[in-house]
């Protein structure tokens, strides 16, 4: 298991940019990698969990940081 969290700073990126950046990162990441997406696009916190369910990846959670959300997933397959 990878302990270190990979952070994708997608703040300023418009829908569906943050999700697309996450998908790109997931493709090259190792299984077990935890990835946190920083996004100020309001669609991301709905789209990313939905995508994770569909893609069979583990959605860990959303943390609101005022101006932006931190959405965390783990690559499990």
């Amino acid at each position: 298991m990878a302990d270190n969290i990979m952070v994708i700073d997608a703040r300023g990126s418009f829908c569906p940019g943050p999700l697309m950046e996450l998908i790109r990162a997931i493709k090259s990441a190792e299984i077990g990698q935890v990835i946190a997406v920083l996004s100020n696009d309001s669609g991301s916190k709905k789209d990313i969990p939905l995508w994770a369910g569909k893609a069979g990846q583990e959605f860990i959670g959303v943390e609101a940081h005022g101006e932006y959300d931190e959405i965390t997933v783990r690559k499990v397959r």
Partner: protein
Amino acid sequence: MDKERISMIVFSGEMDKLLPVGILASGAIAMGQEVRIFLTFWGLMALRKGAFFQMPVSPSFAPMVGDLGKTLQEKKIPGLVDQLRTAKELGDVEIVACGMTMDLFGLKLEDLEDIVDRVAGVGEFIETAKEGHTTLFI
């Protein structure tokens, strides 16, 4: 059974109508679906090399947005070409150009952005669209 495929006939050349084409294609790829795009008339003209950000905005809305192409570029919002390029990198997207429009306007494949795969006829596209669950005319 229907394929998880969304097909789009892109006729419009107005920038505000073209942006959703890229967004919908990206969303479909994100959700694991295939995307097939048929570019015809003004939609094809918008994918001539370097043309996208010069395309007009729908007349009713133009006064609200001013120079949309400039705004998009200033805010670093990807235009249709970059959105489709990303979608193609991440999933199964095929973009074809209407042969009739190519002939009408004297265009060659090399006049178009490199994300356009090939020239095709409408019959083939209609057959492709038939296999999918959703077809949009934009």
